[in-house]
């Protein structure tokens, strides 16, 4: 059976390699993907439509803003699902806290790891904020920035103990912030509906935000990205904290 599977894999791989000869060259302007009317529209009209220079962000946060909103909801639901499967009820956690492990920040951590973490975490968080705020012009956006921000809390938990990280970003605060992120995203959409536009049509928001239509689009996209960032940051940290401790949120790893 194993030999049969190996032969199958090799044959399929050979077929796929053979088929890759027919691919268009990388960056070929005449390739079907670049010549399709829809792709041409995105490439030529994005700056006029959305005033965003980064095509990827324009598609994610503007053309398909509805899609991105529910991707954020998927992240939120994943956090709730993990909590439902392995989370321990709060009452039992309180009971354990009275017995209490007395581990403090850095008491039994290595000095080098601790100092490195102290150096990295602020830089990582600043970079995450930059990635969220600068996503219109460079690679990045709410999701990537949120992941980086969540990673900084995970790093804190890995080096200084989970208790220290939870003191800064507790589980209940995490879920409140995660829900706030989605509300922020949907709120921008509902606000643009209330002002007479379509759902997530940022152009009508220039009556509320400073600057002209282009700046209003840019600002509201920033708000939306910040919402995604809130949800992703907190949910990633909650997932890590629960998986590392079997849900009882005592010292992990």
């Amino acid at each position, binding site marked *: 059976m194993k030999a049969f599977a190996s032969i199958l894999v090799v044959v399929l791989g050979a077929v796929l390699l053979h088929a890759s000869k027919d691919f268009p060259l*990388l960056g070929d302007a005449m390739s079907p993907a670049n010549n399709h009317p829809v792709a041409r529209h995105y490439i030529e009209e994005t700056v006029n439509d959305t005033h965003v220079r980064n095509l990827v*962000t324009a598609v994610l946060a503007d053309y398909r803003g509805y899609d991105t909103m529910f991707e954020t909801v998927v992240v939120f639901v994943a956090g709730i699902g993990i909590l439902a499967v392995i989370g321990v009820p709060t009452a039992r956690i309180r009971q354990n806290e009275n017995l209490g492990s007395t581990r403090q920040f850095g008491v039994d951590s290595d000095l080098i790891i601790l100092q490195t973490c102290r150096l990295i975490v602020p830089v990582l968080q600043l970079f995450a904020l930059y990635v969220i705020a600068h996503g219109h012009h460079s*690679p*990045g956006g709410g*999701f*990537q920035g949120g992941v980086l921000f969540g990673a900084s809390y995970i790093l804190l938990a*890995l080096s200084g103990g989970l208790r220290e990280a939870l003191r800064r970003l507790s589980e209940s605060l995490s879920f409140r912030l995660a829900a706030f992120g989605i509300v922020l995203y949907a709120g921008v959409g509902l606000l643009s509906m209330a002002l007479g536009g379509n759902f997530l049509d940022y152009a009508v928001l220039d009556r509320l935000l400073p600057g002209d239509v282009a700046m209003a689009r840019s600002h509201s996209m920033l708000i939306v990205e910040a919402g995604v960032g809130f949800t992703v940051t907190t949910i990633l940290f909650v997932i*890590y904290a629960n*998986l*590392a401790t079997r849900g009882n949120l005592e010292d992990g790893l």
Partner: protein
Amino acid sequence: MIYVLDFLLLIFLVVAAVISLRLKDLLGASMVLGVYSFLICLLWAAMGAVDVAFTEAAVGAGVSTVILIATVYQTRRISKD
């Protein structure tokens, strides 16, 4: 495009994938999976898909490796099958 570099990266990618499948040690397997993520991140960056490469570096190589290792610590380390 440097074809030799691309080719080397692809070979290492396949090797990393096979190793992470064959390893009995779950901790090692998740770390090799992190290596796999970094390699495919480099490939995507070389092909100009910087957004995808960024996401892969942050999510695939960074956070999901940590989450996998956190999960492995809750299990027995050596796989039985």
